[in-house]
């Protein structure tokens, strides 16, 4: 079976299992994957188990991008596209997508962050999203690094978001090769 088919099955399995951490979904996904690659099937179960134990939020489709007087629809559109692409890239991509989505959702929903600050962060996340879709050798790494370094500083201005980057930032930086 081609690697693309395996990736697609892994993605489907990850989505099914993440929805409710259901044992039957895990077992069915394992059986499907085992027919193609027994090692991947085992790896999937291990990863899904650790993922669930660490209480990572389940992936769902993102946000609408309109918050009060702030319309971030265009930037959120870039983020949504990156999420769709990343989800299809297996476990590494899924972690990146989950981190990007969680940060975007929490920033948009945050009540103690000024609109201008929200806009700055969502602009940065949209830039990261666009760069994530470029081939690794074409990414503007120096700019990405500086954008990524600026995000935790802005997030720390809202108490409820102060630990968000520590928790999810490494998945974003890791996926981008930083």
């Amino acid at each position, binding site marked *: 079976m081609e690697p693309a088919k395996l990736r697609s099955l892994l993605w489907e399995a990850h989505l099914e299992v993440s929805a409710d951490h259901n*044992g039957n979904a895990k*077992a*069915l996904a394992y059986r499907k994957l085992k027919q193609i690659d027994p090692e991947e099937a085992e790896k999937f179960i291990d990863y899904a188990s650790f993922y669930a134990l660490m209480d990572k939020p389940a992936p769902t489709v993102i946000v609408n991008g309109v918050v009060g007087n702030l319309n971030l629809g265009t930037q959120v559109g870039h983020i949504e596209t990156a999420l769709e692409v990343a989800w299809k890239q297996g476990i590494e991509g899924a972690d990146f997508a989950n981190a990007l989505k969680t940060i975007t959702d929490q920033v948009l929903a945050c009540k103690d962050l000024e609109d201008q600050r929200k806009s700055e962060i969502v602009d940065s996340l949209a830039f990261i999203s666009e760069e994530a879709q470029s081939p690794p050798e074409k990414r503007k790494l120096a700019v990405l690094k500086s954008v990524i370094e600026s995000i935790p500083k802005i997030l720390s201005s809202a108490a409820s978001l102060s630990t968000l980057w520590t928790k999810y930032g490494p998945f974003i930086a890791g996926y981008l090769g930083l």
Partner: protein
Amino acid sequence: MAESEDKEMASVAQSISGLQNLKYSIASIVEDRSEYRSLLEPLTRWIESHQHSTIDPREFVQAFPTVDPRTLTKVFRLIAQSGGFRRVYKVITPKGTLPEEYSEPPVRSQILGVAEYDIIPLLVSKVR
């Protein structure tokens, strides 16, 4: 020396050698992620203290709550491949963990009387 003792000694020697290899492999994973370098010693100590028992991901996560699941999965898989353990699956229900061990993750029809469950992989030491 009795034949059974010979076998036991050989098994322990294999387990010690497996542990050394494991330490090197974990070191290479941790080296890749600079933020986890300081975890090498605690991780290997934790594995050493569990090498004659069961490695349960729930205890693993409790011991290293800030390590990302990808890294823990890699370490868990290295332990599984080190040869000292056999892999089993246990079923967790809202009322507790079922006593049965499965060699493959069980589907719903294999677990009677349970509406909601999750599966956890465990590594059980071959030398106990």
